[in-house]
């Protein structure tokens, strides 16, 4: 196992470099112009000068090399400086956003709290709801509980968050006036009262997002549980006199987890990527909003950096999923 992990980690390095190159080429091939949001009143000559100031005139390979150096060499130095109060990175050019003319990493760090609070929490909530419901639905297939569960989760998945988000805002903020419709990113939790405010402003975006997660994971959980409940080994286990709880929750669940783990691992990086539409609807302004804003403004350094960090997480979590498969089912071998 250890050799498998280290081999995979080694392969990850060239994989990630190829991915970063592909992303870079894709972004440069896409029709884009960082001046797209500049008002039409600004004359073309001025726009051209602004483009040059952003370094757009340089050949592509130089732009890519610059980004590589900035991201892999200078940004870690900044991090070390931050940790140990050293000054390795002084005066060195970091990855700079074209929109804000400030380091991309600083903005990402600034946006981590609300992203993790809202998107991360919704994910945890979604998983915690989905798995038990999925198990019970499968165990009591076609019971009233299963039918209602299926109905609600499928509707939850088929109505997009741009609708559910606005719907809950109209009900809970406009009609009832219970919850704020705009997320306050400057709010800091220091005591019980501020914690309650934080809960209030989180509740709607978290639930809207959790609805999607729940629906997805619940469907896979139910389906694979059903598959396994009909397997011969279940009959054998029951015949051996194991308790129903042990049969279902240990044997069946363990064998059913593989697709569910895959789905969960696939979507964990998405927490970091944020939830573009939901963030927009509730003005959470997390990393998802940063990414989509940068895409609209054609702020390539920001898009490149965020998508690349996203890629790192994807590679890592898929590796993690592969490791967990081996633990869940020892017959799976990778050598």
């Amino acid at each position, binding site marked *: 196992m250890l050799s498998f992990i280290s081999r995979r980690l080694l392969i990850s390095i060239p994989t990630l470099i190829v991915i970063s190159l592909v992303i870079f080429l894709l972004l440069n091939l896409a029709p884009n112009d960082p001046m797209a949001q500049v008002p039409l*009143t600004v004359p073309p000559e001025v726009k051209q000068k602004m483009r040059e100031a952003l370094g757009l005139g340089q050949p592509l390979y130089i732009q890519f090399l610059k980004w590589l150096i900035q991201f892999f060499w200078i940004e870690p130095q900044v991090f070390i400086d931050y940790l140990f109060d050293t000054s390795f990175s002084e005066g060195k050019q970091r990855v700079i956003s074209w929109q804000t003319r400030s380091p991309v990493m600083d903005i990402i760090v600034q946006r981590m709290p609300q992203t993790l609070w809202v998107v991360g929490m919704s994910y945890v909530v979604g998983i915690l709801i989905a798995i038990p419901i999925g198990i019970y639905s499968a165990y009591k297939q076609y019971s009233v509980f299963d039918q209602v569960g299926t109905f609600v989760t499928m509707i939850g998945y088929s109505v997009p968050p741009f609708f559910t988000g*606005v719907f809950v805002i109209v009900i809970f903020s406009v009609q009832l006036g219970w919850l704020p419709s705009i997320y306050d990113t400057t709010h800091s939790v220091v005591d019980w009262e501020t914690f309650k405010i934080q809960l209030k402003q989180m509740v709607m975006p978290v639930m809207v997002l959790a609805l999607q997660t729940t629906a997805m994971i619940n469907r896979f959980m139910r389906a694979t549980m059903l598959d396994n409940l009909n397997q011969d080994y279940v009959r054998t286990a029951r015949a051996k006199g194991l308790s129903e709880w042990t049969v279902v929750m240990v044997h069946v669940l363990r064998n059913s987890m593989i697709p569910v783990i895959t789905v969960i691992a696939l979507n964990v990086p998405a927490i970091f990527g944020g939830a573009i539409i939901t963030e927009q609807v509730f003005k959470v302004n997390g990393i998802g909003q940063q990414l989509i804003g940068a895409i609209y403004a054609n702020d390539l350094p920001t898009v490149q950096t965020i998508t690349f960090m996203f890629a790192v997480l994807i590679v890592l979590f898929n590796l993690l999923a592969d490791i967990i498969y081996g633990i869940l089912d020892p017959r799976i071998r990778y050598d």
Partner: protein
Amino acid sequence: MKIKSLFVGLAAVLIATASFAGRGSDGNVSIIYWQAPSILNPYLSSGTKDIESSSMIIEPLGRYTETGALVPYLAEEIPTVENGGVSSDLMSITWKLKKGLKWSDGSAVTSADVKFTADYCMHPEGGCAQLAKFDGVTSVSTPDERTIVVKFSAPKPNPYGPFMGGQSPIIQKKQFENCMGAKAPNCTDANFGPIGTGPFVVTEFKPNDVIQMKANDNYRDPNKPAFATVTFKGGGDATAAGRSVLETGEFDYAWNLQLAPEVIANMEKAGKGIAIAGFGPLVERLEMNLTDPSPDLDANTRATRKAPHPFLTDINVRKALSMAIDRTLLVEIGYGKAGDVTCDLVPAPDLYAAKNDYCMKQDIAGANALLESAGWKKGSDGIRAKDGVKLSILYQTSTNAVRQDFQALIKDWWQQIGVETELRNLNASVFFGGDPGSPDTFQKFYADVEMYANTFDGTDPQNYLSMYRCGNEPKPESQWQGENINRYCDPAYDALLDELSATGDLKKRGEIGIKLNNMLTKDSYTIVPLVHRGRVSAHAKSLGGVVLNTWDSELWNVADWYRIK
């Protein structure tokens, strides 16, 4: 209920008579812009959101008022030829700073800061977004602490480019001294928290998210601003911004509510706030392509002056297309009180407005007759054609709910005059971007007709009208950059433009401006204006002092805002 409303009414009267209790006495005011500010230095970004948010912190020498008049801010008065501030040959302008001005850090504002501002923007490597404001400036000199003389290379009938309006505020020399040219992006702290003379100073700036501000202790009026702190939130969409002011009351002021009129009217019913409208020179228009965008042509000929358009070069076709449009209905459906029917490219200010009315009424029968007499006969499919050329139009615009409604309506009207229309909508960041590699930019104009809105800064339309000069069209040789979108070319128009740039007399300028406007619209139907668009913003009923200004930053008088108690 009655007692309460009586009390509110009484309070309003009291406020109207008694003015402010003093600086910082009204607590917090919260503003929402659905586009979030990304930087507080308008010289590095010309987005409206950036210019307007920074206008609360840094100020120019003078601003435009809500009527388009000029009003001094940091200057003692607006220099004119009459008061001797502008030289009679129109080659220089002399500004004088108010006495005793202080930066928010307590140091004095001097003419050196003003000169530095010009140097900062005119630095060749800086990529200054407001460079056009400094067009033609040869030198900026400072004879004394409070006097600034700006010299131009040619007579400037409108010398109010530099240091005037939200686009050109004064920045502090001390703070930005080491941020010139290529070093500009390294000055994150300065760009995110400029030291200014405005009513507020930044306490925290989260780019593309939120700004926290507090009252400036050194603001020149000791009683202002009435608010101690400001929360300036950005992001989301116009609907949500409107809702947060008009329906839930979470915010006090929402900017630019581009929403269907009935949506705004419905939100207002909640009783928490008021929608206000103001008009600048913004016009939603159809641009006619005078060149052939056919994909069969090679890349160096397609949509260039080498290939004239097969049917849009016929003025009768352009005129008929304009006649078929019911502009009153467009306004009613798309803009409500934030729009007016217009037949002009320059609908404001009054001096330059032609106030034409040739297009006010829809005339489908007239349009049909015109096409018929011009030889465009209906075929069996109901589409008019002449000499094998069919009136078949590709009509493109950016993605936006109102624009798509307009497209559907106009397609329907054109159908009625025997013109076939294919609609296309494009992502705004591609359509308005200038990527020469993309076929979908508005400059490249690979379509027959396109629709968008444009405007000009300040109150002088000279540069705006100069866009339609012959040779200024986007073309392959200029990497498809250029502002003459229609590829319009008329020597008489160019001659008149030259006359305009040499004329100082305002009345004369107005007359020439109107002539130029008519050449593009009424006389040639090259540009078919649709709607004179205003701006709708909303404020809470408890927020007083708001004066919506479309000629300058909307937050131009934020120092005068107060809480109605």
